């Protein structure tokens, strides 16, 4: 083998011989293939996960836009345009942008990612996220995630600030809060978003499905009677499909 090696290196420059010597002396070996495969898989997994989260954000955005209490825009703001800007789901749009950027970053670092332009990758990521997001929305993920966040993450409702902006408005006939105690015949005590206690006077029939006391936030439309009493006209869930939830409002997180 030594003889063969010498034969091969005949005619090679000093530099080449030196490199070969170094490889032998330092026992340098090619890195195993599995290391490169693993690295590539990890990048793809991160790219896929980012794309998936982006699609889920799209599902929530669709859900929020569709359940944006459009019928109340007159009460909330003077015109539709300012209502749209006030109620855009900025938090989820931010999440979508961040995860599209992450998906782009990871994809760009795959072996062939460099071949695609920024514009092509971003546009195709958005389109693919929208398609998958529509699917996720149609199976109820938008509603589920929004509700799960609202119930389990205390800061979430502060991030979706437009809900508070709209529903912390008793003077305009719109309030939200948790039922403290059900007094029967449509009357109940409510703690609003500012922790103020209200007596709510309803005309809700006893057959109407009724949210349990303390369980979750509900939205109320009606008229204020004074500083502590409120006449209830309609209840909606928070975040809502209306109350009671319509048949086409998926309940994956009951």
């Amino acid at each position, binding site marked *: 083998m030594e003889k063969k090696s010498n034969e*091969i290196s005949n005619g090679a420059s000093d530099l080449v011989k030196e490199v*070969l010597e*170094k490889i032998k002396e330092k026992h340098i070996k090619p890195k195993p293939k599995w290391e490169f495969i693993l690295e590539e898989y990890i990048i793809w997994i991160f790219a896929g996960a980012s794309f998936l989260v982006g699609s889920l954000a799209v599902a929530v955005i669709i859900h929020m836009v569709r359940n944006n209490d459009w019928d109340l825009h007159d009460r909330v703001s003077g015109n539709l345009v300012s209502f749209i800007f006030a109620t855009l789901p900025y938090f989820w749009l931010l999440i979508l942008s961040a995860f599209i950027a992450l998906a782009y970053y990871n994809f760009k670092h795959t072996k062939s990612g460099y071949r695609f332009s920024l514009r092509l990758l971003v546009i195709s990521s958005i389109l693919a996220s929208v398609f998958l997001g529509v699917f996720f929305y149609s199976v109820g993920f938008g509603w589920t995630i929004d509700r799960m966040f609202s119930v389990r993450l205390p800061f979430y409702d502060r991030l979706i600030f437009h809900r508070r902006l709209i529903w912390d408005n008793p003077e305009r006939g719109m309030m939200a809060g948790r039922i403290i105690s059900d007094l029967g015949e449509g009357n109940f005590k409510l703690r609003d978003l500012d922790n103020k206690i209200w007596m709510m006077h309803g005309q809700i029939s006893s057959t109407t499905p009724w949210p349990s006391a303390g369980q979750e936030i509900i939205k109320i439309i009606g008229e204020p009677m004074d500083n502590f009493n409120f006449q209830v006209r309609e209840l909606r869930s928070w975040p809502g499909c209306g109350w009671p939830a319509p048949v086409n409002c998926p309940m994956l997180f009951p």
Partner: protein
Amino acid sequence: MTENKNFLEKTDEELAVLALGSKDYFLYLMRRYEAKLLAYILRISSFSHDEAEDVLQEVFIKIYKNLNDFDKNLKFSSWAYRITHNQVISHYRKAKARPQSLPLDINDKILANLSSDLDIEKEIEAGYFKKAIKKVLANLDIKYREVLVLKFLEERSYKEISDILKKPMGTIATLINRAKKEFREELDRQKIKI
């Protein structure tokens, strides 16, 4: 001797696979690329010949260590040039140096390529043109210099430059156009008339 002849007939890609089995076969690859990569390093950098040789040694060791990462969809030469490019950039970063002069090897074919692509009149004295090109290239930003070197001096296709620099082909085309513009502007700045 017969074995040596057999290896001469092998493609770079075949040699890369063989080198994984025995390091002696890596020598053939090094012999094929030594002069080319050394010239490339000298063309895109301001390194002295000795320094360029040191970088080339590191390049060969890196190529050897990463043989299993060689993407069969690429030409081996593009992959080797990519590693060389990265090593030069990394060497620059370590030294925090900016190139000052370029020991370019410019032949008549390269002159013809450059003058037709850069819309420069052909009736110029070759010696003067070579000096002017060296001076102008040495003053260009490395991102412009390397695309001009790859396109006109190394005579690489857009696809190969894209694979070497890991940028989309559209970006390469834009970079080359900008580099040509920068080249002409640098000619004006240095008051070189060609």
